[in-house]
């Protein structure tokens, strides 16, 4: 099984989004957490906040740096992963699963088309290294 699920779409800024029934679940990629190192703090938007594709909606802080998280899609935040504030290390352990960041009700579902597939993303991070 690939580290990067085929059903997800990926950004150049190393976020992933999985869409189900108009709701996009967003997280950071395995590559992102590995580059960041030990994550110590996660800053997420409030439920109800509007986010725009390509714009920052929060940040993750590791012992090395603070990095913005850019939304892959536009929409409204319907849920945030509360568990991360007490246990930010989950982002290092399970970035593609239980350590999702936010869920968003998509307002422009076609935006998904411009994101990378799993195979394209893996090619992209290889080239970046």
């Amino acid at each position: 099984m690939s580290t990067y699920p085929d059903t997800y779409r990926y950004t150049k800024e190393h976020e992933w989004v999985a869409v189900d029934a108009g709701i996009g679940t967003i997280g950071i990629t395995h590559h992102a957490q590995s580059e960041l190192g030990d994550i110590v703090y996660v800053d997420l938007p409030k439920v109800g906040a509007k986010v725009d594709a390509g714009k920052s909606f929060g940040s993750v802080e590791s012992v090395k740096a603070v990095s913005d998280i850019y939304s892959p899609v536009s929409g409204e935040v319907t849920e945030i992963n509360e568990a991360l504030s007490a246990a930010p290390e989950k982002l290092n352990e399970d970035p593609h699963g239980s350590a999702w960041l936010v869920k968003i009700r998509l307002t422009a579902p076609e935006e998904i088309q411009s994101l990378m597939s799993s195979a394209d993303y893996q090619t992209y991070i290889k080239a970046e290294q």
Partner: protein
Amino acid sequence: MIKKVRSHPTQNEPLLFERSSPGKKAYQLPALDVPEVDPAAALGGENVREEIPGFPEVSEVEVIRHFTRLSTWNYAIDLGVYPLGSCTMKYNPRINELVARLDGLAWAHPYQPETRSQGAFEVMAHLEQALEEITGMDAVTLQPAAGAQGELTGILLMRAYHEKQGNPRKKILIPDSAHGTNPATAAMVGYEVENIASNSHGMLDPEVLARAVTEDVAGIMVTNPNTLGVFERDIARAAEILHAKGALVYMDGANMNALVGIARPGDFGVDVMHLNLHKTFSTPHGGGGPGSGPVAVKKHLEPFLPAPRLKTTAEGLRLDFDRPDSIGRVRAFYGNFGVLVRALAYILAHGGNGLRNATVDAVLNANYIRRRLEPYYDLPYTAPNMHEVVFSDSKQAARGVRTGDIAKRLIDYGFHPYTVSFPLIVHGALMIEPTETEGKMEIDLLVDALISIALETENDPDVVKSAPHTTRVSRVDEVTAARRPVLRWKP
């Protein structure tokens, strides 16, 4: 081979709280010779407490020895080279201290009447003029207390300027090679930040810039030389592009040590900039003293400068508060005055030629380090560098050794580490700035140590990965410290 060592006392030093025993004192007061006042009656009973729980009771000599011992665990510019890139950790000449301790300056009080503050005002006016001449700008405020506050002041000036024209605009452009504080500054002033990617030489690309500059752009924040230590060759062209759309150019002057006496930002299109007196002008830096971040502007921004401004009148220098367009005060009184005195002492002790020589030596030192270390460390950007040089750890990473490991091993060789993992556009950066302070002997020791660590990485990487070995405490658990910080000592 370790050629230079310094002492690391290994005794455990208890906290003052742990040394406390009841009744010990570090003072002896004479008998009260005025009528005794009941504090509860004077202040209200709820504001008075009998004793401070857990307050340490220790003797004077215990306090002195405690802090003196702690001070020996420290590293300072007076102990050796401090190669932190972009920090310009240069020697603080003793003449600065001598001048700052002159009675009339050291004991000046900010509430003295203006007529009795003429000497202090003259120091400030003289420094303003010197900084105007060095930067090629038209006016200077000395108020900001440090670089980040200088940036904030500068961008507030930019905003005030645009507001006066009827539209504050929305965005500030920031190249990816800029200082990390720049985006924070722009956001604090209410601007959106747009990142501008550098070209393959690590420089601003005028064509990329031209596409980004619109009527929404308030200005650009550019660090020059940038954080790669590279001079922005197209800065004048970039300024033209911004100015053509009514936008302004802010220069982060943190790297001014590469320009003083050689190039003036006012001559290459900069509208507003800050200086770090604690970097370029040799005043104490870091824990050694407060900073100072004067802001220099061109004429069109002068009306907005923080009030009050020094003004020459027939009766001498006076403070002018009548500044209707001013953004207001950014700092109490006159800024960090003692630091201003030291900076002026540095400028006058060097004179024009001396300042120019300092710049030339700073650039020479960085280039010497680059030449000697190039065979051992990867140099990701090969454009000519100025006062600092940025390597990457990519050669060492193949052996599992990262920039942070090399920095920690450098401590074993008796040096303060260089800047680790910054700038962000270089993966695994080692950023080294020797400044003009260092002679060839000290620089060779530093370079030899870094070469030796590169060789250790090949032959015995574990020794580097587990460094430092000679310090009282080796690696601390940064992750737990950040995730579950314990901020308070409890018995």
